[in-house]
């Protein structure tokens, strides 16, 4: 019998190979589900699968929680730097846009007043005492033919800034029209009433007082004041400021008013120094 099996073992196993699955298929139609041997094998394999899954999940978890977190930390740091760089770039771009706007205003001013010889300068410092209203500026481009001198007018596209009180090399100190030492001969643009704008030197604002204005002269709040061209420093028709309040007394020869300068001195960054004027009344 064993000899017979040995002789036909290949045929027997081949038959078994086909018969067993076929039988299994046929049996499953009669009795659904796996038989005992299958279930036993499945029970043996399941712990292996579970163990392997646990092992790989552990490695995966370790990877995600530790190794990947290291990358996350680096990524986080990189993103922080990126945010910082973008913020800096944004601030710089805003600055460029604002500067562009200011320079455009200055250019417009230069085009509106072609007769004025203008020397651009940049504000680099402000006064450190509350008593004086002075800015320090640095010339943008050196111009040897027209050196900067005291009593040269300083303007911006918004209006009159002040006058040079000191000049050295490429730097100059500019006394603002809000400084108590400043006197600017002005006229009301609407009524042509004339007066002197004197700086008040207030701590919290840059206001000036309009004095030596005749009582009979008609002025109103919101009237715009411009330079008269008299006094030898400021060219004509430069905007000085706006009348904000009037102190009209019933006695005396003069009336007074408060003037708010048209220039926002707190945000001033670029100015022009008027080095000359091509028409009559040149103020070097």
């Amino acid at each position: 019998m064993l000899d017979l099996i040995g002789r036909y073992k290949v045929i027997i196993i081949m038959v078994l190979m086909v018969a067993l699955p076929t039988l299994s298929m046929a049996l499953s139609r009669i009795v659904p589900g796996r038989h005992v041997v299958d279930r036993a094998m499945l029970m043996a394999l399941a712990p292996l699968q579970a163990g392997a899954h646990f092992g790989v999940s552990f490695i995966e978890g370790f990877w995600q929680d530790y190794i990947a977190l290291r990358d996350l930390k680096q990524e986080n740091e990189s993103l922080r730097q990126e945010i910082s760089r973008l913020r800096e770039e944004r601030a710089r771009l805003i600055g460029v846009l604002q500067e562009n706007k200011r320079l455009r205003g200055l250019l417009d001013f230069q085009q509106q007043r072609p007769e004025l010889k203008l020397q651009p300068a940049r504000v680099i410092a402000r006064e450190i005492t509350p008593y004086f209203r002075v800015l320090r500026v640095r010339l943008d481009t050196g111009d040897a033919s027209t050196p900067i001198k005291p009593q040269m007018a300083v303007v911006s596209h918004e209006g009159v800034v002040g006058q040079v009180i000191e000049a050295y090399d490429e730097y100059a100190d500019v006394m603002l029209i809000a400084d108590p030492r400043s006197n600017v001969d002005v006229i009301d643009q609407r009524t042509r009433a004339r007066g002197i704008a004197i700086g008040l030197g207030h701590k919290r604002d840059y206001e000036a007082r309009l004095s030596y204005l005749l009582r009979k002269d008609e002025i109103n709040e919101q009237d715009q004041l411009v330079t008269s061209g008299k006094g030898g420093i400021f060219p004509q028709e430069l905007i000085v400021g706006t009348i904000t309040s009037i102190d009209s007394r019933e006695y005396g020869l003069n009336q007074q008013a408060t003037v708010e300068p048209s220039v926002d001195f707190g945000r001033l960054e670029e100015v022009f120094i008027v080095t000359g004027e091509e028409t009559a009344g040149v103020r070097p």
Partner: protein
Amino acid sequence: MHRLATILVGIVLLLLESLLLDLFGLSLWLPHVASALVVYIALEREMFEGCVEVLGLAWVAELLSGSPPGVYALAVTLLFFGVRLSAVRLSYRAWPVRLGLSVVAALGLHALLLIILLMSGHPTSYVTTFALAGAPSSLAAPLGLVVVWLSLERLDELFKRRKNIFSD
């Protein structure tokens, strides 16, 4: 012992495949370890030895495949006979031919499964599964064959060396 070791290595590789599928969902990058095992055994083993190993592996592969009872095992068995028959006429010594055979074997396994399923009264929707998933995934079968071949070849060398030591 050698046969048992082959079956055990095969089981480990099949478990590894199921694990990879579970973790990464390699739907189209299926290594087709079962068909690769069948190819190796069909080409490298003697008839009886190969039949015993395939019988064992087909059973385990079926338990891991989730197929209805008997279906996967029968398909694997028929594939074994098919590869064995083709080896009578063709030479599979060169690697490119072996890799090509692995693709054909994987495709053949899917086709056999489909035929058996349809013949045993299962829904015809398996045809769509075969066309969209089974057949395209056969292209990744060479990956499985390389791993299986190198593993079992190393095992064979190990047993051969051991046999030589004992015979000396």
